[in-house]
């Protein structure tokens, strides 16, 4: 068993250059030939934040003091999740031509997509920096702990991406259903409203079953409240992330030999 694991790891390392190339390709092509280029990674979330602040901030003025930062922290994490999983979903079907002609470990595409989405999210942190300066939010050493929350989210998205990519090979519908799922998920996550705005049952449901709530809350604890998040929340976050990864890997491995017959 250990030997098998070691051989799989050596295959992964062998293709680490490919992973690097795929991530660089996504980053290079994303804004090639556009005038503003990478500035869009910052401008996009900034503009969305401005629109939503204009609309929603008066509604929740009493409970949320720093609406722009509250909103942006939520959106950045959520957008990373939707972008990485949506792109991952299409990797196997989208790279069909390549998979049919060369031996490539298929999971590498999912890893590449999630990683390049992470890179994009890191660029977007520039928007958060600007907003924090603008709203005079204090910076603190707690910000140094944010990579630990990013790690949870990264692992979670990896698992979810793996699961979706193999599922969409056999049931293409998932690509259309998933759009609805992410929209519903967006509204069930307290991004532009405080979690107390939900009724008691829904609030309990969100706190227990919405992993994005856990990740976003941890991020907000560090950034806005400059406090270390509740350790139970952190444990919940890691457990869910690793469960998602295991589920994704299991589903992927079970069906990967059949991919070529369906793409």
């Amino acid at each position, binding site marked *: 068993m250990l030997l098998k694991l070691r051989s799989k790891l050596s295959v992964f390392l062998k*293709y680490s250059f*490919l992973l*690097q190339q795929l991530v660089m390709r996504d980053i290079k*092509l994303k804004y*090639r030939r556009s005038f503003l280029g990478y500035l869009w990674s910052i401008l996009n979330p900034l503009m969305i934040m401005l629109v939503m602040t204009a609309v929603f901030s008066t509604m929740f003025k009493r409970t949320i003091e720093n609406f722009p930062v509250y909103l942006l922290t939520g959106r950045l994490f959520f957008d990373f999740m939707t972008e990485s999983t949506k792109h991952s979903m299409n990797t196997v079907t989208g790279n069909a031509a390549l*998979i049919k002609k*060369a031996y490539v470990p298929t999971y590498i595409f999912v890893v590449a997509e999630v990683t390049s989405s992470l890179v994009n999210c890191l660029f977007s942190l520039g928007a958060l920096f600007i907003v924090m300066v603008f709203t005079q939010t204090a910076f603190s050493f707690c910000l140094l702990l944010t990579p630990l929350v990013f790690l949870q989210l990264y692992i979670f998205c990896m698992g979810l991406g793996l699961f979706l990519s193999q599922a969409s090979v056999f049931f293409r519908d998932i690509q259309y259903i998933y759009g609805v799922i992410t929209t519903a998920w967006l509204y069930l996550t307290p991004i532009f409203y405080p979690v107390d705005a939900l009724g008691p049952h829904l609030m309990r449901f969100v706190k227990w079953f919405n992993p994005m709530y856990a990740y976003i809350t941890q991020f907000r604890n560090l950034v806005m409240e400059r406090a270390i998040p509740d350790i139970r929340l952190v444990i919940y976050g890691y457990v869910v992330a690793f469960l998602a990864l295991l589920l994704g890997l299991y589903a992927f491995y079970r069906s990967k030999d059949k991919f070529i017959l369906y793409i």
Partner: protein
Amino acid sequence: MNNDYQISIDNVSMRFNLANQKVDNLKEYVIKLIKKELFFKEFMALTDVNLHVRKGESWAIVGRNGAGKSTLLKLICGILKPYSGTIQVNGNVAPLLELGAGFDGRMTARENIYLNGAVLGYSKGFMQEKFNEIVSFSELQDFLDVPLINYSSGMRARLGFAVATIVHPEILIVDEVLAVGDAKFQVKCETRMQELLSGGTTLLYVSHSIAQVKRLCQNALWLDQGHVVMSGLSEDVCKEYEKL
């Protein structure tokens, strides 16, 4: 475990499910499940194929279109898993099933060389070392920073072949890719393959050009509709094949 053979193919069969309509959404799946139309026509692409290749040998695989040649190559490369039988391959395989597998048209040749190399499993250092060699072999120095969609198919073929043959692989598998390209390119490719052969590379070559087969390969395997018709020295096999 045969240690003297580099490639051992024993009683291998490959079955595909030929569907008239692909079922790839939930509604059709459920309807067909209820109507019991879920099992499709079976198609045996290969039946009971045996092939044993020693290190350094060169084998041609000949046969009419649809005989199963490409399927056999894909099985050896590990892209497909056999339906039954065993395949053992000792040594790293450089597949040339399609020139420029992994080429992304939106990127430039320079970027694609690295990407294609990565797809074939080479390391970054290796690609950096061999970069100039690849460029000079493909004679595309002036077009390095042009996106590949603007290339002609011949240019793409040259680039793909250059990247794929830059190593001295232990096993080289070539599938009819050299049909495209002018005479000069064909000669260049043949010379390169001869070089690799004299260096001890094992070659598996699918071609419809019997003359080329006789020039390059010592042995030949003749497939017809998934069955092995004849296997042996290429002069003998080609003589029989040409009788048709």
